[in-house]
């Protein structure tokens, strides 16, 4: 999951749902909340582009820049994965 919603602070404006280029969010009802709040229902599609965070008026979205592990399409993916956390080999 790459994008986190702070539900406490969400004012339910729905802007993140509208702006996300990859359609990650939906508004969902929550107990004790008058209005539905944002929820990242398709987190695996998030590309960490920060657009939702830019637009959110309540500052309650946090996008983690973490790259999802590169899969085997990348011939050097293992090498790249290794270097992600330690810097030099």
């Amino acid at each position, binding site marked *: 999951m790459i994008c986190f919603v702070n539900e406490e602070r969400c004012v339910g404006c729905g802007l993140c*749902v*509208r*702006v*996300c*280029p*990859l*359609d990650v969010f*939906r508004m969902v009802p929550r107990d004790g909340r008058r209005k539905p709040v944002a929820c990242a229902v*398709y987190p695996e*599609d998030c*590309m*960490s*582009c*920060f*657009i939702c965070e*830019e*637009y959110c008026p309540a500052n309650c979205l946090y*996008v*983690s*820049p*973490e*790259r999802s592990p*590169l*899969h*085997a*399409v*990348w*011939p*050097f993916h293992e*090498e*790249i994965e290794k*270097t*992600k956390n330690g*810097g*030099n*080999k």
Partner: protein
Amino acid sequence: MIWRGYRVSEWTCDVLMIGAGLAGLTAAWAAAREGARVLVACKGFAGADGVSPFAGGVVLYLLPEDDEDGFLQEHERLNEGLIHPEVLRRVIRQNTSLWQAWGRWGAPLEREIDGSPRRRWLRIGGRSHVPRLAVDSMKMMQFLRRLALRSGVRLLEQTCITRLLQDAGGTLVGAVGFQRQEGKLVIIRAPAVVMASGGCSWRGAHMGQHNVMGDGVAIAARLGAELASMEFCVSYVATCSLFDSHGQCVLAALGGKFRNSLGENILIRHGLPEPAPTHQLALAMVLELLEGRGPIQFDLRGISENERRDWEERFPLVARGLRRTGRDIFAEPVPWFPGFTGSIGGSGGIRWQRLGGETNVPGLFVAGDAAMRTPVTGAGSGITFLNLAWAGVSGLWAGLSAARWARGYLAAGPEWTREAIEEGLKETVGPLERRTGFSSRSLLRQLQQVVVDPCVNFLRTREGLQAALSRIREIRRETEMLRARDWHDLACCHEVRHAALVAEAMLASAVVREESRGWHRRLDFPNRGGPEWEVWTAARLRQDGADMDFEVQLWLPSSLGTEPPEGADDLLRE
């Protein structure tokens, strides 16, 4: 209206714009100013759609007093040919007047004290210094959204177009698609369509590009539009291994060095200029990795504090991501690798015949990355600052000509048949109705396996390409049996379907070009060809028995119309 239990919303307009990046919004604005009723359909949010918000503030800006001829020569050299000088000259000049006008209307540009757009100079390709504008791309896109809305453009957002509709005579009459968040089908009547839906990233690794999946290119190809220069649709831009970043070219121009595991500067090792054109850098990176001298580190320690701050302002989103990784790429070298950007950094797309974006399908116009860009950016990505310039200018021109076409056509009255709509809607909901079928995710992986691999792409051979092509055909046939879990996934299914078709056109075109230049590298034809290869490819989908197939032909630059539509400068004069 209800169709087989689905809710359908119906729309009518004179010009339908597909895509809302820089090209789409510019085209929408221009068409509306020309008197057309414009509807923009885009998958995201107009103003934050496509790759434009990530085109970090680099747009070419040449003034009349600059050395245009010198620039053209250098540009031709760095991009390894296939440029059309006359077209390029017109684009460069129109681009300057376009940004001047936007500047006057309050665009978020850096300015001089007298209010004129402020220029910066960026070193590229070893010796040339290219004047560019510094733009905050995200704010710029919001500005263009406001401009479009103010001129009366209507927006249909989070909407995926799946098919264009033609009348019996082959003229375009509209489009069908769906709104993924509302679970609703859409039918749009439009005598003119501007395809500005961007290139194809095949969801490679680079910031902000996962939503461009070749939709418009594939939809147009299915309608009979030709795709040009598709062999150049494999581009790689260096990206940080820690997270998907962009803005590499500016960092390199400021003095960043790419080093291999031996600590050697890889550009010097490969005899390349510093900073190198993107395609040359990518090739050098791949060779280093293949030969076991990876990982490649990007050493930014030579960049001054001021330059760093300036870069962070220019690329705020990358800078934010960077801070969050907890690593300081300016203080310690960090691994970077050649991230795949497909046709976004490459130059293939729908073939246009004249500068108004006219295609071989009457009523279909094209702009931005969805359009072939070879006449402007050539075979490589030598100076990438032209991509945004092309997006704006091609949008302006296509918007004008589409509006005029619609006006002429409406007099004759558009005709469309019930059957065409039925067929389009059936195709649209197909994946939703299948009980069993392939998942979009697994087919995308398989597709990437064939398309993204830099080893394969930089070491193309006839046999390798043909093997890849038959694999892609299999995958493309399988994309007709995709199953969508829900409306969100329905969009993914159509994207994978489109991206597979674009991949097929790319590989079919790559087989035909028997030489190496720019992004197209053949092991079996390692050198740049002679004058006989100063031609462009055109791939056209044709029915081949029960299946389909791309037929690729070569065509000459001389057949390209070089007159832009009239009146563009009048629009910009206000």
